């Protein structure tokens, strides 16, 4: 096969797969533009709306109070995610590059945090939090989010830090670097792809987190995006037009974060690892 036919095959296969992947998303778009009557007409999910209800987006924004919820979500994500990454990378640095006993033991200890079903944590957390007045307190919520995110953060960053050659550390120590500077000046910059990865995924998880928040935050003015979407899913029926419009609005920030960071980690990495 010539280079050209190879390229065509590659593109065709990939585009086909991408189209399949996009199909369900297309239904979200179409449904977001349908009226209730249109949706319930029982036509196919792919049928073109009879009347294009662009209004659904405005309604979803207003009724779902998405403006307020998204602002809260952004505040929480941009505070929690970097803070979490700092804590996680410090720990990952110690267990991969410093003299620490029982490295694997410590690592697995932190992994347990990922394994605990969140539902089981609700009762003790709620009890402690109400005793210490941490309900409706972002500080308290950060602690819980960071705590539950630590397992994943350390898992990812440990993996990447282990691939960084040891020679770097030795050279740094010879140059008179202390551990703190080794972490900040050398290891952390090299770990950028891992940081970007954790940032993207943790941002998304925090953005969509619902269970812990619903019990630890009872003040509506402090809640985040999922609360805006549930109001479209009523006891007796879901307003699918508004729900889908709301979903599309609410993924814009996560999509932007993804696009910015994925670009960053791909390009930013190119030279760093070449030894």
């Amino acid at each position, binding site marked *: 096969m010539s280079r050209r036919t190879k390229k065509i095959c590659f593109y065709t296969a990939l585009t086909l797969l991408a189209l399949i992947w996009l199909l369900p998303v297309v239904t979200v778009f179409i449904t977001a533009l349908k009226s209730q009557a249109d949706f*319930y007409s029982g036509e196919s999910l792919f049928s073109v709306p009879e009347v294009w209800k662009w209004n659904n987006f405005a309604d979803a924004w207003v009724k779902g109070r998405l403006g307020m919820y998204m602002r809260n979500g952004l505040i929480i994500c941009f505070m929690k995610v970097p803070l979490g990454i700092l804590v996680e990378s410090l720990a990952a640095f110690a267990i991969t590059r410093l003299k620490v006993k029982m490295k694997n033991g410590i690592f697995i200890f932190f992994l347990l945090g990922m394994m605990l079903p969140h539902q089981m944590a609700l009762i003790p957390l*709620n009890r402690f939090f*109400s005793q210490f007045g941490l309900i409706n307190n972002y500080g308290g919520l950060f602690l819980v989010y960071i705590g539950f995110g630590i397992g994943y953060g350390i898992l990812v960053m440990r993996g990447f830090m282990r691939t960084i050659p040891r020679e770097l550390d030795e050279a740094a120590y010879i140059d008179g670097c202390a551990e703190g500077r080794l972490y900040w000046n050398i290891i952390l910059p090299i770990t950028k792809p891992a940081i970007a990865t954790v940032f993207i995924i943790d941002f998304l998880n925090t953005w969509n987190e619902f269970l812990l928040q*619903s019990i630890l935050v009872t003040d*509506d003015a402090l809640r985040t995006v999922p609360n805006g979407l*549930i*109001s479209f899913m*009523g*006891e007796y*029926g879901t307003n699918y037009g508004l729900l889908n419009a709301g979903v599309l609005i609410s993924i814009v920030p996560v999509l932007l974060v993804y696009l910015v960071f994925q670009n960053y980690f791909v390009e930013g990495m190119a030279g760093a690892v070449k030894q």
Partner: protein
Amino acid sequence: MKRTLCVLTGTAILASMLCGAAVTAAAEEPVEISFWSLAQRKDFEDEIIAAYMEENPNVTITPTYYSTDDIKANLKVAASSNTLPDMWYNWGGSLASYYPENGLTYDFTEYAKENGWEEKYLGSALELCTLEGQLCGIPQSIAMMAVWYRQDIFDQYGIEVPKTFEELEAACATLKENGVTPFATGGQFGWHVMRYIQDLLEYYAGAEEHDALGLMQSDWSSQEAVTKTFEKYKEWSDKGYFNEGFITEDPNDCRMYLYNGTCAMIIDSPTMAQQIVGAEQDPALYSYFAFPSETNEDGTGRMAAYVKMTQVNANVTDAQLAAITDFWSYYYDSERNAAFGSIEQPIALKGAELPESYALAEGIMELMDACGIYTQTDQALPAEVADQLFAAQDGIALGEIAPADAGTTVQNGIVTYQAENQ
């Protein structure tokens, strides 16, 4: 037997009182009340609360809204960590009984006597709010199950509203012959299919025996009526009387088959009236009738019903209690409450009229009074027993459980439950 439905008897011979007349919110010291409610009520409840607080500046009501699933779980979490709000929305039956059972709710029995609740609220609503021998909440609305149907489809095939069970079956046969599925249902959570089961059970077992089954006093595994019920359900399911794939259909989505005319009937509560309007359908095409389970002389049967209520924390102060009852009087006062048209109907007050948004359900209160009610099965049975019934429903439809064995499945659930809750 832990759950007892105490039947309130007799009508008190008291001077008739107007709504809320007994309550005076004279206290001037500030009163704070936390309130958990449902997310889809946020729009109008925020409005009502703001209006109420404007009139009563010393009262602060702080609402928190949850989805239907979250409020159930979060109330349990709050109960087990001692952080329940001052008042909260709840359904009736086994969902609500947990709280009076554990002494967490204010018992309104005495309060109701002193304040003439029997004059004010529907007897059936008070009855359904009485769990564990306590009047454990302020009644809000009552839901009774009727068969909602497409008038135009009935007309098209010359079907009359069935007056007997036999006529109902004949109607189903006619519909099916003409390519219309008789019933719409969604079995994903079990309770929607159960609406058909419980009406069949009412038909085959009769009122008294049906109640005994609901109270778990009668053995499900040995009752002929139970077997007949499941056999009929199996027959309907095999004949295609329910929509294709109904077993995992979402009960909220299955109304769609009525809207688009693939199905002709659905068992639903009066909120159906509001749903039809909300889904932008033509209301003129719809009406309802009582399921002909023939427990009454005219061929109708008792209607399955459940109540929605506000439960109040057992630890509220007198001032809080006064403000809470005053707030709910305001809430259900169509004159004072500007958002009245949005709240769920029919409300549990005597003599209340349905707002315009419920025009389709007109007359349903009278029908209920004529037919009588029984407690909806999943509210009569504890959740884990109801789940066994739901599994049996699936199993029968799929041919994995014989109708004759399904009663045993339910009875096993009862035995397990009773062993765990001695």
